[in-house]
Structures are given as C-alpha cells and as structure tokens.
C-alpha cells in the first residue's frame, strides 16, 4: 500500500513539474508571440519655426514593409518636453496617410520662460496595439530668424539675420550657419542663392536678388529664407511677399475662342458645324425610328381590319 502511495506521489510530483514546465514555456511563448506580432517602427523628429511665430514638431512614423520603409498612418504619436511624463506632455497627434504627425507648439513655447531657451523634445509611440514602443529625442536652441528685403537704387538685396533668442539673456549673433534663399514657384521652391553660403560674425548674410523673375499679376513674389534641418536650431523659415517680380501678363488668347482653348471657348464655327451635323444625322435617325413606330401602327390597324 505504502509502495503504491510512494509511486503515486512520485508520479504526481513529476506530473506537476512537467505541467509547470509546459505552462511556463507556453506562457513565455504566448508573451513572445504577442511581442513578435507587434512591428518595429522608425521615428524622426523635426522642429519647425516659421516667421518666429509658428512652431511645430513634426514626426514621421515608418515601418518596414517588404524591403522598404513606408509611412504608418492613423497612429497616435506623443510629444513631450524635456522628459517623458504626464506633466510634460505637449500633446498627441495622429499620423496621416504618409505617416506624418504634426503638433503645433507655438502657444506652449510662448508660455515657457527659460534663461537658455533650449528645449529637449521627445516624440514617442506608446502602448500601441500594432507597434512596439519607440521614442526619439532632439535638443533645440530657440533662435530668431529674420528676412529683410532691401531695395536701393533699383537693386534688390535679401538680408538674412540669425541670432539666439532668449527672454532673459542678451541676444547673440549666430555665425557660420548655412542658410538658403528661395522663391516660391508653382511646383516647389526655386533656389536663388548658391546653396553653400553661411552667416558672418554678425549672424548676417546678404543676397543680391534678381530683378527678372516672373511674379504674380501684381509682380508679387514669395521670398523664403531657410535654415534647413539643423541639429542645433531645427528648421527655420522666414517668408515674405514682395513685388520684386516681373508682373505676369496673362495670355488673353486663352480667353478667345480658339482650337487650343478650354471647352468653354470652343470656336463658334466648330460649335455650329459639329452641332449642325449631330442634329442633322440624329434628326434623320429619329425620323427613321419614327417610321418603325409607323410600321407597328400599320400592323396593328391592318390586324384589326382583318
């Protein structure tokens, strides 16, 4: 009896540990599987300052699909100031179909008074059902980026000034920073500067502006100064409209009735000719269809007579 009990005890112990082992393996596998099902993402973070008024944080969320990385849409992206905590949360934005999530932080920045005016921004994907947690951090020195347009003796100069920006400390010019000058065109920005020029010791750079660029009807051009994707200052943009372009003269031929114009300006002779032909031919077709009805009517009448 004792022996039987001993054997049964041993078997039960074995069974218990076996089950425990299987259980732990199974649970760890499930945990691993859950994590495996979540995909990894890549994050980028940019700080954009336009005209020293609008400040935005821009994140692009990408994941690997096949061999290439593609934007992840409709995903919540968290933005923090200095560190990831609830009190430091600047806001949440959802990525668009290209995976771009944008958060306007103009108001948040305006409220902060700091001697250095240096910010650490963090972007993060957190507790997402499809993607693993991921974060990215950048540190930005807030700066002032100005574009002054100077007209003297019918020559044009675009002056760009770059300096530190702090509500409490003295403003310092930023030297040897590469800036570019563009003009807005229909399908993109046209580079006016050489592309490699940098600010001098006063944080200033002057560009001669061409006088023969085609502008809008009133000669207006949108002139854009850019400091692009800088590790210390982010992306700074200053843009102004100025009537430095050659006024656009709209070709009035387009409003005339010509073969190459839009459908509203079809030449009269063509309208008359084509519509006349359509009416003539389709009128004859309608007449013949009418004859079919006549034949039918005659058939019915003669049947009644019979």
């Amino acid at each position: 009896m004792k022996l039987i009990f001993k054997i049964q005890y041993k078997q039960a112990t074995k069974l218990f540990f076996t089950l425990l082992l299987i259980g732990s393996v199974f649970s760890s596998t499930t945990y691993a599987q859950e994590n495996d099902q979540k995909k990894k993402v890549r994050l980028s973070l940019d700080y954009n300052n336009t005209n020293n008024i609008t400040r935005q944080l821009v994140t692009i969320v990408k994941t690997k699909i096949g061999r290439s990385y593609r934007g992840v849409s409709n995903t919540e992206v968290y933005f923090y100031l200095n560190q990831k905590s609830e009190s430091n949360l600047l806001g949440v934005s959802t990525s668009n179909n290209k995976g771009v999530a944008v958060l306007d932080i103009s108001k948040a920045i305006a409220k902060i008074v700091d001697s250095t005016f240096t910010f650490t921004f963090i972007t993060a994907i957190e507790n997402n059902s499809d993607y693993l947690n991921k974060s990215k951090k950048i540190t930005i020195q807030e700066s002032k980026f100005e574009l002054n347009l100077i007209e003297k003796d019918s020559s044009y100069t675009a002056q760009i000034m770059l300096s530190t920006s702090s509500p409490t400390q003295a403003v310092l010019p930023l030297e040897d920073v590469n800036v570019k000058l563009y003009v807005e065109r229909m399908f993109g920005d046209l580079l006016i500067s050489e592309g490699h020029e940098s600010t001098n010791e006063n944080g200033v750079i002057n560009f001669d502006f061409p006088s023969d660029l085609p502008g809008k009807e009133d000669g207006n051009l949108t002139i854009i100064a850019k400091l692009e994707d800088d590790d210390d200052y982010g992306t700074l943009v200053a843009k102004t409209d100025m009537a430095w372009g050659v006024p656009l003269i709209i070709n009035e031929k387009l409003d005339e009735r010509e073969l190459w114009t839009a459908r509203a300006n079809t030449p009269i002779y063509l309208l008359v000719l084509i519509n006349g032909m359509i009416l003539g031919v389709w009128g004859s077709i309608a007449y013949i269809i009418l004859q079919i009805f006549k034949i039918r009517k005659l058939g019915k009448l003669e049947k009644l007579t019979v």
Partner: protein
Amino acid sequence: MKSQLETNHKLANDKAVTRAEQIQKDLWPRKFGLYGKIWVGVLLVIFITGTVCYIDQIRNGLHITGLGNYATWGIYISNFVFFVAISLVGSLISAILKLAKVPWRTPLTRISEMIAIAAIIFAGLVIIVDMGRPDRVMNIILYARLQSPITWDVIVISTYLAISILFLYMPLLPDLAIMRDRFKGIPAWQHKLYKRMALGWNNGPKQKLILAKSEKMLAILIIPVAFGIHTVTSWLFATTVRPGWDSSNFGPYFVSGAFMVGAGAVIAAMYIFRKFYKLENYFTDFHFDKMGKLLVLLSLIYLYFNINEYFVPAYKMKSIESEHIEALFTGAYAPMFWSVQILGMIIPIIVLLFKKGRKPKPMFIIAILVIIGAWFKRYLIVIPTLAHPLIPTDRVQEKWLHYGPTFAEWAITGATLAGALLIITALVRFFPIIPMEEIIEEGEIENNSKDS
C-alpha cells in the same frame, strides 16, 4: 386557251411557293451541332480568360500591361483601330453596293451588318479597356471638348452604332414576320421574341413603302458616317506631329484599308457559313468571284495609299522620320512590316487577279491572310511611332524603349475578338444569315420576267 393560261399561272404559283418554302427551310436559324458547340465553348473560354485578366487590371491598374510612358497606346488601341476598320464593311455591302444597285449583294448584306455591329460594339469597349480609370468614362461626354478629335470619335462611333443597328433591324422585319408565322418547333420565348420584333409586319404595301424609303435613307446616311468614323479615327493620330502619324494621307489611307479588311471578313464569313450551313446555293462561286474582284480593287486602292504613305517620307528622309522609317524597313519591325505588306496585300492582289484564285477555298485563305495582316498593320501604325517620341525622356528606363504586350493584354485583346465573334454567333443562332424575304422576292421577279 383561257384555261391553259390559268393552269400555267397556277403551276407558276405552285413553283414559287415550293421555291419560297425551300428558301425558308434552307435559311431558318438552326441549333448548333457539335462543331457549333465547340466553337462557342472555345470562344467562351477565351472570353472568360480575358475577363478575369481585365478584372485584375481594374484591381491592380495598367501596370499589369506592358504599357509605359512611351507606349501609352499598345495593342488595345491597335485592336480598337482594327475593330473600327472592320465595322466599315456594313456600309460597303449594305449601302454602297445597294445604292449602286449591284444585284449579287443581297445574300451578303445581313452578315456584313452583323459583323459591323459586333465590331463597333467592341471598338467602343476596347477604348474603355485602355482606360486606367474606366469609372471616369462618362467624363468623356460630361466634359467633352468639341475641339478634340477624341470627342468627334465618341460622337461618330455612337452614331455609326445606332445606324448599323437600324440597318440590321429594319431589313430583318419581313424575315421576323416569316419566322413568327411559319417557324415551328421553337421555344415559346423565341416565338414571342420574333412576334415582338416583327412589329405586326404583314407585308402590306404601306409598310413595304415605308421600309423601302427608310432603308434608302439609312443607306445614304451611313456612307458619310462610315467615312467619318474611320477618318476621325485616323485623325486621332494624324492631328499630332509625330513621325509616322503626321500625314495628310491618313484619312483615305485608313478608309481604304478598312474597306479591304471588311471585304476580307465578309469573304471569310461567307466561306464558313457556306461550309457549315450548306449554303452553296446562296453563297455561290459567282458571289465569291465578285467579292474576289471587289477585294482586288480595294487592295489596289490600299496599295496606292500605302505607297504614298511610305514612299514620300522615305524619299525625303527628314531626320525625325528617318528613325521611324528605318525601324519599319530594316530595323526591329522589318519582319512584321514586310510580312504584313507582302502576305496581307501583295499576295492577295496577285492571287485574286486569277480566276482560279477567286474560288471559295483560296479566297478563304486569302481573306484570313488579309484579316491577320490588317490586325498587325494597325500594330505597326500605333506602336513604332510611340517608341520614337519627339521629346525623348532624359535617362529613360530601358523597359520604356521596347514595348511588348503582356499575357494580360493578349488575353484581354483575345477576349474582345472572341466577344465580337460571340455576338455574330448569337445573332446567327436566332436570325437568318441571309435575307429570306429579299431572296424570295428577287426570285419571283426573276421568274415573272422569265414568264413574261
């Protein structure tokens, strides 16, 4: 003496009745036999395969084709031009020969109209197949620019379809009435169909007069529209400045080629129906001989326009044209170009000039050569020009330089050809291939003139 005359008259009448009955018996639409069923089955398989590929094209876009930034028009558009060309046969046989009072045209009219309708329906459908966004097809009409030849083409194709349908339907009325009254042993729905379509036709003099007038009107109307349909199609190309298309010869060049392939299609159809429907008494050697002579005439006219089309630019060899001409004459397209010109035009002309060549069998082989040649001729009109753009793209992708249709394109094109043949097959299944009433009446006139 009087009784002798009455007896003769009665005998003549009995003879006419027997002849009419024989004609009706010969020409009733028939159920398909084994070959007919195999024919329909094969066409359906081709059609379904192409339809599946087209669904794939709708789902995944035109990238499943070989089309690219250079060859934006591939075999879809060359097939479209082929269909438009072949559809012109309706106007040739039904209208031109009718107005010219050519007596032997009667048995050929119905089949030529059937071919015309099937071809023009699929010409319209092929254009939709070529569209990347077929859901926007209505925009062609809603936002039509009357300055554009594409708009003219849409207008003229729909007009030609409408006239062709009328031209098939109206002369069918007396036959429909015969089938309504005398065609026994058919399902009730088929009888109902004939009854409805016959519109109470009773061969009354007023009805006959209206029909004759309408047919004459249609015959006059269809000729300018037929010339218009293929001239406008040629203008889709000729109104550009591209080498190979920039030609004032293109309108008559297209129209003459269309009449040629149309005549070829009718000859092929005549042979097939003569063989499988045993219509030797209707599609006689005499008809083949006449159609052979007509085809020679049309081929010679087409040859003349071909010489104009290729000789003049080849003599001048303007730099922009030379690349195109060389590609056709001695380059990548040379084997196809010379095969088409020799097998599809020169040999038919030579063979058909001889009486022996105008017998049914050689005529059938020649007709098939003409049709195949005509299809590839349209390929040669569309593709080589696209491969040599006026403003070549900088650092162009290699694959854009060489267009080759994919399986999907072949399958879809095959489906359109099979679809057109299915329409003809369906029409032949339910309606007489040869106008019965006209043949009977012509026989009566002939007999009466003999009696008198």
